[in-house]
């Protein structure tokens, strides 16, 4: 805890506390729709943080993170549907499956010197394998989709993750805060230093005794495992899973936009990015609805526009310059 607040200006801590308090009381006065938007923001903040471990810290570009969302979702949902196992047990399976899948991809890539864009293509390929494979995977109902039994939401059953959107909102909030704290600690650990070194210059890192294979593998497996948790929550929140949707490449792209816009490699970036993208795009949708304009694809155009503006004017993302403006840089 002491390590967590060390060197952060008081103003930053106050802002963080205010934000946390606001997020904590948000469900008390939010409508059902706003609560759903809040859930989505937290969801993207969380998966953005998980993706950031691989790309932002260790410099390994994954364009196939939908693989881990999907595998995690299917692992927990299938165990629940077939054996009535609690998602908290399914979570263990999801983490194991995703960490293994990440390690397998990492092994193939890093052993055989697949790097840069070729590595990114490999990650897309595996997500696509899964999408097509799961379409024909009868145990999880293939392309016709896996549905979770929807019970009445009269009571929140945290053990089986059956309950109101408010419960899911708090669950996601807990995960997002947890991921932030975890990443904060990682970044200040030996492994964190090694990841940054690998990101900046693999040759120099290796010359300083860093085992590239081991630390890149750790980044992929950890990022995959973290992402799988989001998959589990996703499955129990939406109650239906289709390979065509959950493994789709657009899902992978969607989840990396937040950290890119917020600031790759920063701890706050994925959160800021999720707020900006999801918050504004939902706001835009609402506005269009009010104005009676029906334009399909507005969200995609909006994402494109945001990305364009950030690339042109804020190549490091929104957060680093914002932090400077607010005087929130950490003092060493």
């Amino acid at each position, binding site marked *: 805890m002491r390590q967590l607040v060390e060197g952060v200006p008081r103003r930053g801590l106050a802002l963080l506390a205010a934000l946390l308090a606001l997020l904590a009381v948000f469900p008390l006065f939010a409508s059902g729709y706003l609560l759903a938007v809040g859930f989505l923001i937290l969801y993207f903040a969380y998966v953005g943080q998980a993706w950031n471990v691989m790309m932002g810290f260790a410099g390994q570009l994954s364009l196939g993170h939908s693989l881990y969302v999907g595998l995690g979702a299917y692992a927990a949902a299938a165990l629940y549907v077939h054996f009535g196992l609690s998602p908290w047990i399914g979570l263990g399976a999801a983490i194991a499956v995703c960490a293994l899948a990440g390690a397998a991809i990492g092994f193939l890539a890093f052993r055989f010197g697949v790097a840069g864009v070729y590595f990114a293509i490999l990650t897309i390929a595996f997500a696509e394998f899964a999408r097509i494979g799961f379409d024909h995977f009868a145990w999880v109902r293939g392309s016709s989709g896996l549905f979770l039994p929807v019970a009445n939401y009269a009571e929140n059953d945290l053990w089986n993750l059956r309950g109101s959107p408010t419960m899911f909102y708090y669950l996601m909030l807990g995960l997002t805060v947890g991921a932030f704290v975890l990443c904060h600690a990682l970044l*200040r*650990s*030996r492994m964190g*230093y*090694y990841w*940054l*070194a690998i*990101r*900046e*210059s693999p*040759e*120099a*890192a*290796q*010359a*300083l*005794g*860093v*085992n*590239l294979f081991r630390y890149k593998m750790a980044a992929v497996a950890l990022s995959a495992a973290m992402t799988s948790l989001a998959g589990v929550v996703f499955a129990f929140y939406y109650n239906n899973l289709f390979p065509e949707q959950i493994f789709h490449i657009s899902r992978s792209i969607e989840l990396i936009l937040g950290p890119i816009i917020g600031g790759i*490699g920063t701890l706050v970036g994925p959160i800021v990015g999720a707020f900006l993208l999801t918050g504004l795009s939902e706001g835009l949708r609402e506005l269009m609805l009010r104005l009676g304009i029906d334009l399909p694809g507005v969200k995609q155009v909006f994402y494109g526009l945001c990305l364009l503006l950030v690339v042109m004017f804020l190549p490091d993302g929104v957060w680093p310059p914002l932090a400077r403006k607010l005087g929130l840089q950490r003092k*060493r």
Partner: protein
Amino acid sequence: MLDVEGLSKSFRGLRAVQNASFAVPEGAIVGLIGPNGAGKTTCFNMIAGVYRPDAGELRFAGQDIGGWRPDQVCAAGIGRTFQIVKPFAGLSLLDNVVVGALLRDKNVSAAKKRAAEIIERLGLGAKRDLPASSLTLPDRKRLEVARALATRPKLLLLDEVMAGLRPTECDQMVAVFRELNRGGLTILLIEHVMRAVMALAQQVVVLHHGEIIAQGAPAEVVRDPAVLECYLGEETEV
């Protein structure tokens, strides 16, 4: 401490290093010199594990390190700098050196403390919190040395760290290396700045076209006709 025996490496038929043999005794400072393209850096890269030798043997502190990965070579106790500097551009100078220090000091705060000492020693103390990308070339060369030193090497490989330094800066570096050497560090350096080689090296190995053409005390080697020929560019058969 380091024994190089019959080391050879070719790149697509170009013989970069041929049958090179020399030794770096424990506690010595040995200079590796030669004209551009003589194969000095290739030699370094084989010792440091970047290239696998085609033939020959590399023995360091009793172990055969030929074909080891760079991180294994570093862990065995050989630190190196890069001729073309490779700073971790997005990290502060201190964090750059911390990465090196973490090899032996697994604890981050201990590594930070030692990294700060090394930075101070190399005269970069005032710049420790600046991003490495903002450093001038001479400072980046110093950073290369600081990072390599942070891994606590027994043998330090220096690849043209004096290039681009002003004479006074060069002399400061020489003083630092002398002091480190007195503390027990063995040094093998590639250097074009003869002022530094003559001041530092107790022994010099001259490479030309991938072959060793002379070795011995610096004062003798610079009078060797073969060395003079390759440096002054006397006509040779083509």
